[in-house]
């Protein structure tokens, strides 16, 4: 079984904020990490491979330094890493990213399953998975919390809904995006780390994947960010003091108007 996992290197979101005075992004100490949901997608792929046999290929679109997350993925059980990198990809929104990843998947050849994290924590859009499925013209399921059964023909999964979950059966090839409930990602083994160190990372440019220039990067992106700003700060804050009774009385007084 040929499994492809799409991963993304993201700034650790908890560190990113705008300086309220200068209105600039403060990036001091911002670390780059593998998108947390993608770790679960990778783990699921490796688990399916261990059960079914086959090959796990991780792909990422990003700057050259995104190679780090590919090596990390190899250390955690992936067989191969592919870096899709080109200045022409810069400024891609989810439409252009879906297109670029689809071109990459098609360049790699036959596949049975494509796995993605539910969303990336820098954008939180959850749009690339479904967009990629559209471009590849394959059925998909988002927010999968459990793989119930896999064979070489079909996959059965539990897809999270707002009021519970649906159990779906999809013919392969198919795509799924996963939530963190699906598994517990393994820690890289020493052997894995050694393998990752030596691994050859394949590198694709825009022309290697046959991308049309009007469909990639800023040019291929229907959406455009026109303004970036800090969220409004909370108004007057009141931290009470005194005994529990006194504090609760003050709180109830304040809340009364809203209840």
């Amino acid at each position: 079984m040929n499994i492809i996992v799409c991963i993304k290197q993201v700034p650790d979101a908890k560190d990113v904020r705008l300086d309220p005075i200068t209105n600039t992004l403060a990036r001091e100490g911002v670390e780059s990490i593998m998108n947390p949901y993608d770790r679960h997608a990778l783990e699921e792929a490796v688990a399916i491979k261990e059960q079914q046999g086959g090959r796990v290929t991780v792909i990422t679109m990003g700057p050259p330094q995104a190679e780090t997350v590919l090596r990390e993925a190899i250390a955690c059980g992936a067989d191969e890493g592919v870096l899709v990198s080109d200045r022409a990809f810069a400024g891609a929104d989810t439409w252009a990213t879906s297109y670029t990843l689809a071109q990459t998947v098609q360049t790699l050849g036959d596949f049975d399953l494509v796995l993605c994290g539910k969303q990336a924590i820098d954008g939180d859009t959850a749009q690339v998975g479904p967009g990629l499925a559209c471009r590849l013209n394959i059925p998909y399921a988002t927010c999968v919390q459990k793989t119930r059964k896999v064979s070489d023909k079909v996959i059965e999964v539990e897809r999270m809904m707002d009021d519970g979950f649906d159990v779906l059966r999809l013919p392969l090839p198919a795509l799924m995006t996963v939530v963190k409930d699906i598994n517990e990602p393994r820690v890289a083994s020493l052997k894995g780390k050694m393998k990752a160190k030596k691994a050859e990372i394949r590198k694709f440019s825009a022309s290697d994947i046959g991308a049309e220039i009007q469909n990639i990067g800023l040019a291929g992106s229907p959406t455009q960010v026109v303004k970036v700003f800090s969220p409004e700060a909370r108004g007057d804050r009141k931290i009470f003091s005194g005994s529990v009774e006194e504090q609760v009385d003050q709180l109830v007084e304040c809340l009364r108007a809203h209840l």
Partner: protein
Amino acid sequence: MLIIDSDKCTACGICETSCAFGAITVSDNCAVVNESCTLCGACVENCPVEALHIESAGKKIQSDINAYSGIMVFAEYRHGNVAPVSYELLGIGRKLADKRGVKLSVILPGGNVAPFADSLIAAGADTVLLAEDPILEQFREDVYAAILVQVIRDQKPEVVLAGATAIGRSVIPYVAHAIDAGLTADCTKLEIREEDGMLLQTRPAFGGNIMATIECPHSRPQMATVRPKVMAPAEPDPSRKGEIFQVHLSEQVVQTKIEVLDSVIDNEDQTNIQEVEALVAGGRGLESEKGFSLIRELANELGGAVAASRAAVDSGWIPYPHQVGQTGKTVSPKLYIACGISGAVQHAVGMQSAEIVVAINRDGKAPIFDIATYGVVGDLYEVIPQLIKRLQEIKK
């Protein structure tokens, strides 16, 4: 590409600090960009001497933009009901349509959905498009997407709004990709420019630490999803008039590759924490599973629901659907009471858009107090019972 005008650049270094990706540095008295650049535009925005601008290789421009008119809402049907978010979308959709002077339509796919048409008109719709077929009783991405693509191509709305729900977030990105439309997820604010119909879509990014306003200048429709409880529904007006149409569904459109083997409603946790007005959340400070019975009691008193921090979920005290934060749900209730939650940023990003935040924590220095509207410093096992008691007294 990011273009740097070396004549204008004063090497002040503001661009360097404004870049979240370490993509721009100042060397030899001029800024230099490297391959990490994502063209996010933060440096362009912040450059005091306008030395930076972004140039794009021939942006795709759709030629028939002016053929698109009207606002369309995708209404969601599941397990016999229309999702509340659909009425909220009609509320904001009505405002956008009135400002622009166009019609508001709503598409509702489902098994037997005709009985809901009147309530959609009362909530603001001018036109209701019903897509009825037994197969639509269950949500299937491929069939839903085929219907939405067909209806959008046929009706040519300038704006399409959908709920940022499990269903909306799953099928809408597929539709947007299929019709080459721009899509903005989880908008918290939507405005429309009267003259050209440009939809100004504002949403949180980087887990809510930054807000971004997004436009789709060269393509139509402009698509956006909105989280539940962010927009207010209009007061229903049963005297409103509207038209109701059945969408013709060809055999091809209702063809599916997806088999729905089961659709499980989680009986214990039927309440979606994104859809209630009051949430009482418990964290590590509860110290045990038992603490949630107290949390639940307070939530019941307020007519709300129970939420939790990641620490509480990871400890196995409460299931994942209750989790608020970066790896859980984003909520924006009127009232959010955080009990024994320290308020790490990962939690804060999921709840900081709540109207009123009450923090109850023993540690007066906990970061939760920085984002709280009201703070009670004390042992939650003393504070909550006292609070319940006082609330009951008020009711009497």
